[in-house]
C-alpha cells in the first residue's frame, strides 16, 4: 500500500473526521445492534464514508435503515441502491406507505399534506422490530437551535422520546451508552460539523453525491417563499404556477417539503463558494420547520431524527 501524504493532518476537517470515526467505533464496541439512518442526503452519505473509514479494512459492521416516505426524488433511490451495492452493506427500509396501509399512522390531507411528520412511527417500529439499540443520525448542532445542546450519544426512552431537560453530561471523549432494555440511543457523529464542513469534506474526499445537489433545470413553483419541485405527490394551490428554473437542493428529504434554491452551482467548488456566500441556513429551505419557532424541539421530543 502506498504511504499517504500527511499534508492536511492538522486541518479542522481531519480533526472532525477523527472525532466522528472515534464515535462510530465507540458505538460498534458499546452496542449490540447499531444501525445507520440513511436518508439519501449528503450528511448520511458522509456518515457512510466515515463508517467505511472507521472499520477499514473490515466491512461496515451495521446495516443502513432508510425511512421511506414514498415521496422521493427518483435520483435519491437510484443513488441509495448504488451506494448500498458499492459498500456491500445490508439495507433495511421502513416504509411510511406500509404504516399508512396498516393504519399505524393517518396521512395528512389537503394540498399542504406532508409525510415528514409520519416518519416517526415507522422509524420507531423498525427500531423495535430489529431491536436496534443505537441509530446513527446525520444531525448537526449547527442546523437548528434545538440541536445546539444535543449530545453525541443521545438517550431515548422506551417510547423513543428525547428529554431535553434530562440529558446526560458528556465530557471529554467518554461516551456513556448504558441503557435499560427497550431503550435506545441516537448517535450523531457529525455533531460538530457545519454545512460548510460537510461540503468541504465531500470535496476533499471526492465523495459521490446525488445529482440533485448540483444545479439542474427542473419544473418548480413557489409556496410561502420556498421553491418546491413539481412531483406526483404535490397539488398546486390556486395562484401557484409552474415554471422551469435552474435550481439545486441543499438538503434532500421528502420531495413535498424539501425546498430548492436558485443556483447555477454545478461543481463542488461552486457549491462551496455558494455556501460561503449564502444568506439563509440550510434548514431555511425546509418548509416544515417554519410551522413554529419551537417546531424542531417538538419533533425531536417525539423521536424525530
Amino acid at each position, binding site marked *: *500500500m502506498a*504511504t*499517504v501524504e500527511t*499534508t492536511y493532518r*492538522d*486541518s*479542522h*476537517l481531519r*480533526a472532525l473526521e*477523527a472525532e466522528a*470515526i472515534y464515535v462510530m467505533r*465507540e458505538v460498534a*464496541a458499546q452496542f449490540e445492534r447499531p444501525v445507520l439512518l440513511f436518508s439519501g442526503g449528503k450528511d448520511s452519505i458522509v456518515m457512510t464514508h466515515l463508517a467505511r*473509514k472507521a*472499520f*477499514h*479494512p*473490515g*466491512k461496515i459492521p451495521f446495516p443502513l435503515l432508510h425511512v421511506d416516505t414514498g415521496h422521493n426524488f*427518483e*435520483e435519491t433511490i*437510484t*443513488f441509495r441502491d*448504488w*451506494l448500498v451495492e458499492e459498500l456491500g452493506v445490508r439495507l433495511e427500509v421502513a416504509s411510511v406507505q406500509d404504516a399508512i396501509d396498516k393504519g399505524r399512522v393517518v396521512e395528512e390531507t389537503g394540498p399542504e399534506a406532508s409525510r415528514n411528520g409520519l416518519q416517526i412511527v415507522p422509524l420507531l417500529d423498525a427500531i423495535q422490530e430489529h431491536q436496534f439499540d443505537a441509530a446513527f443520525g446525520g444531525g448537526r448542532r449547527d442546523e437548528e*437551535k434545538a440541536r*445546539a*445542546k444535543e449530545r453525541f450519544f443521545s438517550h431515548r426512552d422506551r417510547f423513543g422520546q428525547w428529554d*431535553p431537560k434530562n440529558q446526560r*453530561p*458528556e*465530557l*471529554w*471523549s*467518554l461516551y*456513556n451508552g448504558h*441503557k435499560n432494555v427497550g431503550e435506545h440511543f441516537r448517535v450523531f457523529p457529525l455533531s*460538530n460539523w457545519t454545512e*460548510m464542513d460537510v461540503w*468541504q469534506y*465531500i470535496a476533499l474526499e*471526492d*465523495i*459521490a*453525491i*446525488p*445529482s440533485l445537489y*448540483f444545479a439542474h433545470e427542473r419544473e418548480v413553483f413557489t409556496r410561502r417563499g420556498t421553491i418546491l419541485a413539481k412531483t406526483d405527490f404535490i397539488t398546486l394551490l390556486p395562484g401557484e404556477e409552474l415554471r422551469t428554473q435552474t435550481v439545486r437542493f441543499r438538503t434532500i428529504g421528502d420531495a413535498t417539503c424539501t425546498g430548492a434554491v436558485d443556483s447555477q452551482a454545478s*461543481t*463542488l*467548488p461552486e457549491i*462551496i*463558494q455558494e455556501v460561503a456566500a449564502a*444568506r*439563509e*441556513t440550510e434548514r*431555511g429551505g425546509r418548509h416544515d420547520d417554519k410551522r413554529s*419557532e*419551537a417546531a424542531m*424541539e417538538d419533533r425531536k421530543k417525539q423521536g424525530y431524527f
Partner: protein
Amino acid sequence: MTTNGTASAASAPEDAGNDYLEMDLLRFTTAGSVDDGKSTLIGRLLYDTKSIFQDQMEAVEEASRTRGMTDDDDVPNLALLTDGLRAEREQGITIDVAYRYFATPKRKFIIADTPGHVQYTRNMVTGASTADLAVILIDASRGVQTQSKRHGFIAALLGIPHLVICVNKMDLVDYSEEVFEDIMDEYTDFAAKLDAKDLTFIPVSALRGDNVVDRSPNMTWYEGSTLLHHLETVNVAADKNLRDFRFPVQTVIRPNQQFRGFAGTVASGVVRPGDEVMALPAGTKSTVKEVTTFQGDLNEARAGEAVVVTLADEIDVSRGDMLVRTGNTPTVGTSIEAMMCWMSEEPLAKDRHYLLRHTTREVKAFVDDIRYRVDVDTLHREQVENLELNDIGRVLVSTASPLFFDRYSLNKETGAFVLIDPYSNTTVAAGMIRGEGQDADKVAAEAQRLSMGERPQSENVVWEGLNIPREEREAKQTHKAAAVWFTGLSGSGKTTVAREVERQLFERGIKTMLLDGDQVRHGLCGDLGFSQSDRSENIRRVGEVARLFFESGAVTFCTFVSPYRDNRDWVRHLFPEDRFFEVFVDVDLETARERDPKGLYAKVDAGEIDNFTGVDAPYEAPENPEITLQTAGLSVEESAAEVIRQLEEAGIVPAA
C-alpha cells in the same frame, strides 16, 4: 455526472479555492451569565464574523420585537441568537451547554457556551472538558466578582491552557484605562493561585462591538489584539502531548485470518512502524508492524489521529487494553487520587459501587474517601461527609481492576474519567486524576511535596519530537548516554571520585559532563537557600539540566548531597530505567567531619550554619542504589575504577 443518478466531485479539490485545507480548529468555552453580557458577546462574534444567516437574523429580530427585549437603540437583541431550548426561552436563561460554530479563513471555532451561576458548575465543567481556551467575562462596571473567579478556577481545574479575560461593558465606564488596569491587576493576583498558564486581558464592549471583531476607536490606549484576532492566532498546537505514546484500543478489526488490527485514536504521543510497544494490562511486548488507515499506511500517527495499528506478533489485545511504548509506561494501579465534580441530583454514596469509564475501559469502582471539598468561590478546603450536585472535591477511588493512567495535568486523555450510576445508567461524576492513591498522611504531606512542582510523576518519560533524538546521537558515538548521581554527606568524597571518573572516561573519548553542587548554587540556583523546599527545588532544576545533557548523548555526572529520597526518586523518574545510576558514597559522619574539605563542619560547630545535613538536618540513605562506595576503605582511584567497571558492565561505555 454518471448515468446512475450519482455524481462525484467534478474537479479535484485543489481547484476548490482550497484555503480551508489549511484551517485548523479551536475549541473554546465561555462561562458567564446574562448579566455579564456573555450571550451578547457570542452573538457579537457570530454577527460580526457574518456567521449568522438572514433567516436566523430575521427570527431574532422578530422575537426581539414581540418580546420587547430590544436594546435601547434598536440593535436587535444579539443574546437571543444563542438562546436554545424552550424552557430557557421562557426563563430567559441558558441552562445547558450549547455548542456554536463559526469560522474565519484562518480557523474553525467551536464554542461550548455554558451558564455561569454556581448551580451550573457541572455544565461549566462539561463545557471546559474539551476546550483549548476559556473566555471569562468580567463586567467592567462591577469589577471582579466571585463568579469570574469561579470560572477561572474551573478552567484551571480542567487544565485549559489559555485563559482570555474579557473585561466587558467598557462603554459603561467611559472606556477607562484605569478601570481596566485595576481589574487586570486584581485578577492576575487571583490567577497566580490557579496555576493558569497563559492569561490575556482584553477590554471590550460586546454590545457596541468594541475590540470583539473590530478594533475599538474608543480605546486607543489598548494596543493588544481584538478578541477575534487573539482567538485566530493563539497557538494551541503546542498544547498537544506528543511525548507519551498512549493508544487505548477501541475495537479489534479482523476481516480475515491474515489481518488483525487494533482500532483507536492516538490519545497522546506518536507511533511509528517499528516502535517497540507493550500491551497493558498483560505487559506483553511486540513491535508495531503497520499504522494504517483507509487511505493507506502511515509513516507515523500523532495524538488525535484515528488509525488501525497492527503488531508483528500475535499477542492478546482487546478493547479496553492500551498500547504504550516500552520505555514510557503510564501508572498501572487500582487506587487513584482525583479531583471530582459531582453531577447528579443524587449525592455520592461511599457504600455502593459505580462504573468508572476511563479511556476505552470500564471498571467497577468505589469512592473510598472524600479528602476535602473545594468551595469554588473562596477556594477554601472543607471537610465534608458527602459530595452533592455541583460539588468539587478531592477523592480516593478504588477500582476492581487496574487502570492505566497518567496525571490529568500531563495527559488529559489518560487522566480523565467519569462515574456512571449502574442503576440509573446516568453519568454522575467527572474526575481528573492527580496520582496514585495515597494513605491519608501522605495527602497531608502533599502540600509540602508540591514544592517540587507539579512535574512528571509518570515513569521513565521518553522525550519525543527532539530535532535529533538521543538514539540517533548514540548511534554515532561509541557509548550510550547515562546519568550518574552521586549522593552522600558533605565530605564523603562525591566530587573527588566523580572528577576522577569523568577525567578517565573523557580521556577515552567519552562525551561527559559534570554538574556540581557548588557550581549550580552560584548560577542556576543562586536564588535558593537551604530549607527543605529550596533543596527540593535545587534538585529539581539539576535533574532537568542533567536530563538535557543526557538527551544530548552525554554521560552526565551529578554530585549533590541530595539528602531526601523523594527528591532523588523524582530525578530517577526523569530517566529510562537502565540509564540512571545512583551512587551512594557511604561514609560515617565522623570520617566526613574529619576530612571537612571545605571547612563546613567547623562552621556548623561554630554555630555559623544551620540545617546542615547529617548534623541537624536528616540524610535519608538510598535503599537500593546501583553502586555503593565505602570511601573510608577505598582510595580515590579504587572508587573511580569501581564506578567505571559498573558502567562498562551495564553497557554504557565500552570496556577499555
